[in-house]
């Protein structure tokens, strides 16, 4: 809860001129410039964007961060744990001294310790960000590739092509995705497609999400294509004898980049929650590789003695998802031609 607020405060400090600067000069600016002006004035969205950037940085620098501020993510610290309850001891030198209500949060262990094994939570959260963002980005890219391709074709060619693809989109959206994901995770054996362990897991999850969620992008791209293809520049290209593929990829696609970017930002948080759900159910990332959903799954056994073990990975998911939602909402509003300046 604290991080987004902090970030928006720093956003306040970062862009003071955005409020006074360039408010009444909309005469000759492109849609993208107008949108950027609007976005810069949207403090909440800007805050979300900054948090997203920080999270990406954290995920990329995970090995360095854990070396400086933590411990290896799979190193046990069982001397700090109460062997009876599995909770973190208030005072490691006094095994009878009771449990630490803060779960061992200290200068040494910034986010405390995991119950039972006593692994450093800071390191596990930081490494968990890697998996979470990797899966979310990967799945979103796959959704965008499939969705854009089929959406543009459906919108451009119309007729029976459009009918088939549109029906397919309806059908895909009607599938119980989570159940299918559980099923697929159950039937794909280790070593399939030449991938092992978590490489395979990540691949399978990305594939499942991409395969079933592409219609979200597909519908938007189709709708945009339907309006764009009636515009003069497409007409001009066609009268100059441009081929269909030239019009599709050189004329239409560049104009679709913005809506695609906006809606993929809104798809990422959904995908983060989906990966966490699968790991929570035990069909996502395999332990001991840290994942936020996997940690929450473990905390189901220890929430009575170690409530911090619920809060910390949960907050990690919450902050990440919220930041992407704020950024995506802000981008959508900024690019919405109907919204007033």
């Amino acid at each position, binding site marked *: 809860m604290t991080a987004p607020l902090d970030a928006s405060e720093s956003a306040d400090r970062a862009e003071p001129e955005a409020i006074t600067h360039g408010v009444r000069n909309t005469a000759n600016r492109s849609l993208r410039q107008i949108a950027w002006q609007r976005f810069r004035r949207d403090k909440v969205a800007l805050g979300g964007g900054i948090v997203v950037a920080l999270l990406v940085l954290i995920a990329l620098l995970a090995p360095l961060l854990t070396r400086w501020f933590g411990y290896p993510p799979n190193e046990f610290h069982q001397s700090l744990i109460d062997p009876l309850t599995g909770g973190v001891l208030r005072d490691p030198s006094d095994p009878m001294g009771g449990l630490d209500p803060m779960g061992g949060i200290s200068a040494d262990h910034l986010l405390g310790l995991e119950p039972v094994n006593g692994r450093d939570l800071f390191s596990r959260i930081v490494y968990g960000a890697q998996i979470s963002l990797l899966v979310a980005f990967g799945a979103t890219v796959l959704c965008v590739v499939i969705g854009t391709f089929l959406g543009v074709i459906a919108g451009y060619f119309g007729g029976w092509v459009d009918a088939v693809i549109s029906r397919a989109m309806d059908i895909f959206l009607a*599938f119980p995705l989570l159940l*299918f994901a559980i*099923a697929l995770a159950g039937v794909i054996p280790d070593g399939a497609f030449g991938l092992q362990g978590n490489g395979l897991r990540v691949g399978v999850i990305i594939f499942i999400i991409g395969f079933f969620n592409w219609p979200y992008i597909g519908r938007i791209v189709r709708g945009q294509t339907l309006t764009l293809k009636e515009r003069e520049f497409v007409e001009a290209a066609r009268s100059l004898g441009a081929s269909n593929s030239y019009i599709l990829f050189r004329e239409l696609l560049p104009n679709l980049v913005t809506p695609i970017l906006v809606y993929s930002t809104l798809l990422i948080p959904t995908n983060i929650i989906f990966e966490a*759900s699968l790991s929570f159910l035990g069909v996502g990332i395999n332990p001991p590789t840290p994942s936020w959903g996997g940690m929450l799954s473990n905390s189901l056994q220890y929430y009575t003695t170690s409530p911090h073990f619920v809060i910390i990975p949960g907050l990690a998911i919450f902050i990440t998802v919220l930041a992407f939602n704020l950024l995506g909402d802000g981008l959508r509003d900024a690019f919405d031609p109907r919204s007033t300046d």
Partner: protein
Amino acid sequence: MIAYILRRLGAGALLLVIVTLVTFGIFYVVPRLAGQTTEQLATMYVGRAPTPEAIQATIDRLGLDQPIALQFWEFLKGIFVGAEYQFGRNVVECSAPCFGYSFQNYQEVFPEIVRRLPVTFSLAIGAAVIWLVGGVTVGMVSAIKKGSVFDRIAMGIALAGVSLPVFFTGLLALAFLVHAWGIFPSPGYTPFLNNPVAWATGLVLPWLTLAFLHAAMYARQTRAGMLETMGEDYIRTARAKGLKERTVVFKHGLRPTLTPILTIFGLDLGLVLGGAVLTEQVYSLNGIGRYAVQAIVQSDLPVILGVTLFGAFFVVVCNLIVDLLYAWVDPRVRVAG
């Protein structure tokens, strides 16, 4: 109207076949694409002791060495007329609709699903009522009192709500509301007919947990839709001709806002089984979602297959019902198609 109903029923039936085909594909074709041999595939269905004889028996029993089309035919036949499985000299019957047979527990899957259905339905229906009524009410009040303290707080909570996974809110509720502060009783399932009060108190937290996420989405949707509607010319006309504000809001403002909400509601109700999986897992409720999750742990593949197929059927039927209701509410749909 009758032509429309027939057309939707036909489309629904087609969708059922497609869904069955996809489910079949996931369980019988995808593993082969992933490089599994017939023997390895049979091992996943064999049950407790995968001896070579048992594996061969499973291959024969399920016809795993037959052409894929024939296997799909057998699979379909099982759903409509039932199937029989050979165990040495014994024959086990899996009566229609045969959603699979757990060779680990020697149980037909469908009756097990039916047995757990009251738990999942109690959870899903209770939550759905809460999120529909709660979400729409909050969204409506927010739209009418746009910019007020209520609006800002409600939309802040709603924004947080769509960013909170069910299992996190559930765990927070367990750790604090139940364990640390003792405000709520331990969640659990008591059949409604045994004790309606215990049924409700045991399900309050699971309902609220599952409903919160959806309620947040509905509140946002309703608010946005309502704001758009209230800006329309006919609302100004309604006010100008001296209608009471209440009539304007409920009759002219809310109705067009509700139609898209109802569509989403149909989709969500179909997909609620997915959310129910997570809620049941957090609160240890023995519904069909937990049945599937436990089957993963025991790698009891037929159970996962059965629940997946059931979930897919459920989605199709829910969407069909909503389509028909929609045509009833909005006559334009019937003509368009």
